[in-house]
């Protein structure tokens, strides 16, 4: 502690992660826009030799937005929300302070190394778990550091009961730890054979088993990175920004347990009609439908929190971001279970409808909520008014248009292609060659990429707004209680 006797929350780590969120957000989304245009215009593959092809960029896009943008967003909000709802400053413990700093720097090193290795094509091929074993160890280390930070801060808390957001952060920590460890079990080949590349490894599981473990991971990585921590955020930021208590705290903890229990079963829906046992597929399908309940429990709880306060939607763009986020949460948690119904999946699987669904969730729910959280935190961390409300409004509409373009084009593209693949003529022969089913999609690919571009431009506006706020925003004297102060 410095000379000042007044105890304050310490946001230095949260600030670092905020910068990282913006940086990796720009990189990850930019790569996303590039690969989206590559699908419409294949010539774009050759701007950087072998390193600029769709092949190398696609894992970079997914890993970049998940582990770069979103994970740093989760960490940033943790180092902000954690202190506040536990009513303890991280600066009260020198140990936790240093853990936080090491956590950030190790995170940065691991992510930068991940970027380099994915450009080089060093990959295990498993979706969202492409990193090879040396980097996996780095990820595990930084995860342990985060765990120390969570439980350390909880250990010195003033508030006896844990707020529901903390529950969700704990679940994120545990869930990802378990999933990541089991899915990345691999044997480094160099240490067994003494030759070849030292960083190469081979998966511990083979074939169908590997697929089951991977999609148990893949599906739940979505749960524990794209859903659980975002719910943690909205349960703090929406009530705080709107000055409304959560509609029903009891409902929030019930849907917590529901989500925890049900989510993990649903991974099988990625493997319908594959060679995994039938009962696993059926189980995956059924639990996906049940999953609507806890998901909507949280979403409806959020929307009802705004009951009687809808006027705020007009005055405060942040509320608008968060309400739209919960609406998209409802949309994608309904869309997902529909796609998990076996007969729908027979049509939808392997088509563009799937990336379309993913982006409903990520752009609408995850992206909007993360940006709203950072917008809320910045005036309080930097003691500045947000730079421009007008800019936020234009960002909101630009990005919303982008999302609508994205999912509508992918719905049409996916269903079209699925129908064409199975179409047969009067003699029972296939009606279309594979190439026919690709050519017809090109306009939709262009539309999708342009939607993505809109979203990216919106994100750049966000970055600019944040930059201006931090560098030249109007200073505020006392911390705002609820709605975030912003200039017109």
């Amino acid at each position, binding site marked *: 502690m410095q000379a000042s006797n007044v105890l304050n929350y310490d946001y230095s780590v949260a600030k670092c992660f905020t910068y990282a969120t913006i940086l990796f957000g720009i990189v990850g989304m930019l790569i996303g826009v590039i690969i989206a245009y590559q*699908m*419409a215009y*294949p010539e774009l593959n*050759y701007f950087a030799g*072998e390193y600029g*092809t*769709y*092949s*190398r960029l696609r894992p970079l896009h997914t890993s970049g937005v998940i582990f770069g943008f979103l994970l740093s967003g989760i960490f940033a909000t943790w180092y902000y929300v954690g202190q506040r709802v536990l009513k303890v400053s991280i600066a009260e413990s020198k140990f936790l302070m240093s853990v936080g700093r090491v956590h950030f720097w190790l995170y940065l090193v691991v992510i930068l190394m991940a970027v380099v290795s994915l450009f080089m094509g060093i*990959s295990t*091929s498993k979706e969202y778990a492409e990193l090879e074993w040396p980097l996996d160890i780095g990820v595990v280390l930084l995860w342990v550091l985060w765990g120390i930070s969570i439980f350390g801060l*909880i*250990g010195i808390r003033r508030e006896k009961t*844990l707020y529901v957001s903390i*529950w969700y952060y*704990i*679940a994120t920590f*545990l*869930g990802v730890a*378990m999933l990541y460890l089991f899915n990345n079990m691999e044997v480094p*080949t160099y240490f*067994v054979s*003494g*030759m*070849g*590349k030292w960083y190469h490894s*081979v*998966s511990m599981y*083979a*074939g*169908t*088993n*590997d*697929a*089951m473990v991977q999609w*148990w991971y893949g599906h739940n990585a979505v749960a524990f990175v794209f859903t659980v921590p975002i719910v943690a955020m909205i349960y703090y930021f929406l009530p705080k920004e709107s000055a409304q208590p959560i509609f029903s705290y009891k409902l929030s903890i019930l849907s917590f347990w529901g989500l*925890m*229990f049900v*989510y993990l*079963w649903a991974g099988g829906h990625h493997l319908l*009609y*594959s*060679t*995994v*046992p039938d009962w*696993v597929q059926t*189980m*995956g399908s059924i639990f996906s439908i049940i999953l609507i309940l806890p998901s909507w429990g949280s979403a409806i709880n959020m929307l009802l929190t705004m009951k009687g306060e809808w006027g705020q939607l007009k005055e405060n763009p942040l509320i608008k971001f968060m309400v739209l986020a919960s609406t998209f949460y409802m949309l994608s948690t309904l869309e997902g279970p529909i796609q998990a119904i076996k007969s729908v999946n*027979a049509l939808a699987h*392997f*088509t563009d409808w799937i*990336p379309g669904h993913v982006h409903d969730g990520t752009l609408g729910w995850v992206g909007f909520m993360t940006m709203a959280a950072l917008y809320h935190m910045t005036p309080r961390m930097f003691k500045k008014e947000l730079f421009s409300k007008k800019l936020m409004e234009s960002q909101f509409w630009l990005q919303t248009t982008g999302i609508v373009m994205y999912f509508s084009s992918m719905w049409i593209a996916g269903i079209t292609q699925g129908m064409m*693949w*199975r179409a*047969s003529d009067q003699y029972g*022969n*296939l009606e279309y060659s*594979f*190439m026919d089913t*690709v050519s017809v999609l090109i306009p939709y690919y262009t539309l999708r990429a342009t939607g993505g571009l809109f979203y990216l431009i919106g994100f750049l506006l966000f970055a600019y707004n944040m930059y201006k706020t931090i560098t030249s925003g109007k200073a505020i004297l006392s911390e705002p209680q609820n709605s975030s102060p912003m200039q017109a």
Partner: protein
Amino acid sequence: MFHWLERNPFFFAVGVFLVIAYAGVVTILPDFMESARPVIGTKPYTVLELAGRQIYIKDSCNACHSQLIRPFKSETDRYGMYSLSGEYAYDRPFLWGSKRTGPDLMRVGNYRTTDWHDHHMRNPQSVVSGSIMPAYKHMYTNNADIQTAYAEAYTVKKVFNVPYDKPNMPRLGTFEEANKEVMKEASAIIADMKSDDVKEAFKKGEIKEIVALIAYLNSLK
């Protein structure tokens, strides 16, 4: 009891962990043994094929191509016999993919030739008009990594008892023996190719990535 749990982070965490771990134990463990049993006739990959498989992974072919044929008439008509679990017994990692931007490759070895791949990888549009697949020219200049491929084969043999060197199974032996086998396989593939640069390089003892990749694609049947 419930309220006690809400204030005790450690036991709370244990509770959460039990609830989330339960699904994995029930859905994944039971069929682990059964799913791993190979179908009669399934053989592990040769070293050259493995080198090709590593290139397939390096350039994320699995981001756009699946290797999983579902049991529908429209799929078996287009790609061949539907997939069986035991056919993947030696696939580490599995490469089913999750998106078919391009067609399924599970049995591509049955209906595409070395020559076709040779032209296609250099310039996809020259073979399939309107294709949106990128060309992979760097596969004609980069050398295949035979050592790492051998390391992988050796590792799975030692650690997972993959049946190399068994009767009617691919030979592995020492690295020198394996390398000789690789050169023999490679020369058979190169004989069917029209790329002069690849042929020239092979005379100097170099095996380009494209050769290994084609060996792998031809093995998919």
